């Protein structure tokens, strides 16, 4: 993960767009919290630059 984040950063993709977290099926609350927080972060970072470029190209 450390490696992937650094590589993405070098390629111009914000490392916070990638996250990994292990959640057990018994930890429903943690799962909801994790996903909600991630979605909030992504919204702050803005739309995926790769998708934006693809739309522009099309």
């Amino acid at each position: 993960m450390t490696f992937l984040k650094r590589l993405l950063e070098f390629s111009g993709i914000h490392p916070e767009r990638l996250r990994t977290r292990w959640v057990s099926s018994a930890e429903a609350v943690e799962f909801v919290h994790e996903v909600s927080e991630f979605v909030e972060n992504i919204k702050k970072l803005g739309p995926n630059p790769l998708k934006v470029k693809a739309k522009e190209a099309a």
Partner: protein
Amino acid sequence: MSQKIKEYVQKLLAEGKIKGFFGLREEHGHIMPHLFCDPKELDHLSLGDWKKSGDTRYPLNQLMIRLTIEYPEETFAVLVRGCDERGLKELFKWKQLKEDKVILIGIGCPDELAKACECEKPFPDSLIDGPKGEKADSQKVARIEAMDLDTRLQFWKAEFDRCIKCFGCRNVCPMCFCNECSLEEDQLVNTGEIPPANPTFHLARAIHMVGRCIDCGLCEEACPADIPLRTLYKKVAEIISKEFGYKTGFSVDEKSPFNIIEVK
């Protein structure tokens, strides 16, 4: 420089210590890889300096692996520069070659080549002839890091856009020995799509270069689209060195972080 190498190899052949020597042969102005089994052939030995220092280097380790599969009991000698030796150290660990069946004929790279390559160590430990050059400063990676995130993405997308999926980078790589390459997997990389998934295709290859890339630069030399692959893989090596303390090809014992599991 080639005189000393020639004499060294001639002696090995005469003493029957090797079946053949993987080097380069010059013929009618062309330089090509060759397995020298007859000492007389060494009159045509080239060290890979055609018009500029090191401009006709080839993946000799790769050819040696091919021969070793057919003739596992034979011992070979091979011409190595700093990078080639790094490759061999890893190939021994990956069990593609046996250390006691390979004799390294080392040559050092001159300053101009070391600087062009930004080489970490432009000479092999098993040095027979040539200079013991100094580590060259890296600027290629720094140039990218000086850009902000958006500019970086624009830069890489433009570079990867020119990719024609010739697989030259993978084919020429002296460290790529997988029988089944994930880049040719239909379910991972769409057939008939040019350029291949941008930037996923090249990032996938970059990930596979962890603990594998020896920074020889043959990939960039083989790219018909002049994509700065070497810069990308140099960054990969930098990340692994900084985060995991592992430098590819510098040790014969230490295994890379992606290769610690021993399969007997």
